[in-house]
């Protein structure tokens, strides 16, 4: 029943195709975001928009959501990402200090910062046990699927810069706005990467006054448009925290990607080692489901080695 939005008439009457490079670049404190013009006819015909994000070491792409589903391909590097699914519980829980042997907390040790955190924790009497939704590890070659409206963040904890290419399917039935890709940032007051193309479109329609007004107001996050008293009531926090949330603090010129001093700390299972087998690398951290589906080599009646899938309920020679 769900049909993809069809491109407008003549949008796909393309006589020639071109290989395109990104034509816009926004630099942030911790990296850059490059975008291809979604108003280009080739993109409009396909109903997609593309961007490329480069994250330096110890940099965090601040949380955002989009008006259409996304696929993100990790061209280079590795790190962590998180998605927040509305209504889902926080299933990653920090244990008591004594129980922390099993879980892994990543923290780059910068002495000053670690000391500051310890002091603030001591001030609270005991350490607060955090809980949050699932955090995942990504590495080169991974494809990450981000549903519409789901909050996404990513963090590079390695020396190699992370390069992530992301496609937004603006033609998807899940996008009920127009075909323009939109990022809704939860933090900062940076320009969102597709804003200038919206303005181009508005100007193209001759609505110059509205375009100018929009330009004057650009660069806020989803919280900055609410009045302070609304957010104080909704979050039950003081004005200082609301100012931070709205990106009103003085040093808030860091963009969509911020450098994290002292590294990040959150609970995540220990990484499993990859092992080499027959010249190929087998990752041991794949899902159990994948393990079941992986073909197992078995001898056929004729004595030849056959590749057969091992299904649930079947007796197969496999590790536990």
């Amino acid at each position: 029943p769900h049909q993809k939005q069809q491109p407008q008439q003549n949008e796909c009457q393309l006589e020639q195709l071109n290989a395109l490079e990104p034509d816009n670049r926004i630099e942030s404190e911790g990296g850059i975001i490059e975008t291809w013009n979604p108003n280009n006819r080739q993109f409009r015909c396909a109903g997609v928009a593309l961007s490329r994000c480069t994250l330096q070491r110890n940099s965090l792409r601040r949380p955002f959501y989009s008006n259409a589903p996304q696929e993100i391909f990790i061209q280079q590097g590795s790190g962590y990402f998180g998605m927040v699914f509305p209504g889902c519980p926080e299933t990653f829980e920090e244990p008591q200090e004594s129980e922390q042997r099993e879980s892994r907390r990543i923290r780059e040790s910068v002495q000053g910062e670690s000391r500051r955190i310890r002091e603030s924790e001591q001030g609270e009497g005991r350490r607060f046990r955090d809980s949050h939704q699932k955090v995942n590890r990504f590495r080169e070659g991974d494809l990450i699927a981000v549903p519409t409206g789901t909050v996404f963040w990513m963090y590079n904890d390695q020396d190699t810069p992370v390069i992530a290419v992301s496609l937004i399917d603006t033609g998807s039935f899940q996008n009920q706005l127009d075909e323009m890709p939109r990022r809704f940032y939860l933090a900062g007051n940076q320009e969102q990467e597709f804003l200038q193309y919206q303005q181009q479109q508005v100007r193209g329609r001759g609505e110059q006054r509205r375009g100018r007004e929009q330009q004057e107001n650009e660069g806020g996050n989803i919280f900055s448009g609410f009045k302070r008293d609304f957010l104080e009531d909704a979050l039950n926090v003081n004005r200082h925290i609301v100012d931070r949330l709205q990106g009103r603090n003085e040093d808030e010129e860091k963009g969509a990607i911020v450098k994290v001093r002292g590294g990040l700390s959150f609970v995540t299972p220990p990484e499993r080692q990859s092992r080499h087998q027959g010249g190929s690398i087998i990752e041991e951290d794949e899902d159990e489901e994948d393990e079941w589906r992986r073909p197992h080599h078995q001898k056929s009646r004729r004595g030849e080695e056959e590749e057969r899938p091992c299904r649930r309920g079947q007796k197969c020679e496999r590790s536990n």
Partner: protein
Amino acid sequence: GLEETICTARLRQNIGSSSSPDIYNPEAGRIKTVTSFDLPALRWLRLSAEHGTLHRNAMFVPHYNLNANSAIYALRGRARLQVVNCNGNTVFDGELEAGRVLIVPQNFAVAAKSMSDRFQYVSFKTNDNAAIARLAGTQSTLSGVPMDVLAATYNMDRNEARQLKNNNLYKFLVPPRESERRAAA
């Protein structure tokens, strides 16, 4: 077999006077939704609806529709609504009173605070299983993010990030503050 499916399909569901709301807080109000799970006919129409009642000074936390546009029609009383677009601009900050409608596009953030003893609205949504994501309160987007990530995101210390995640104990509807309740009394 059409007469066994379409002709006899259930096409009615009361949400206005429901005694079993989906979201309820005696100090703040109630919300009832009807989706294609409740009324299968809505699957053909790809529409759903929500009926809400907010007590004076109670608030519906900032949230956005993940997969639908919505048209909020005020039935009774009035409320202050704020709507924010993707650029962080306030696209609506005003009162919605009985008889008026406000369109809230998909993914735009919206919050409402009742200015009447009983603000009632019906919200029509353009998806048969419309879903919302909350930006404040328990199990909201903020509480799903690790504390350190929040602290780094907003350039605040862990204690402030902890407050941001945990201070509001309500999920959807926030009752009025004690001072507001006293003033109203």
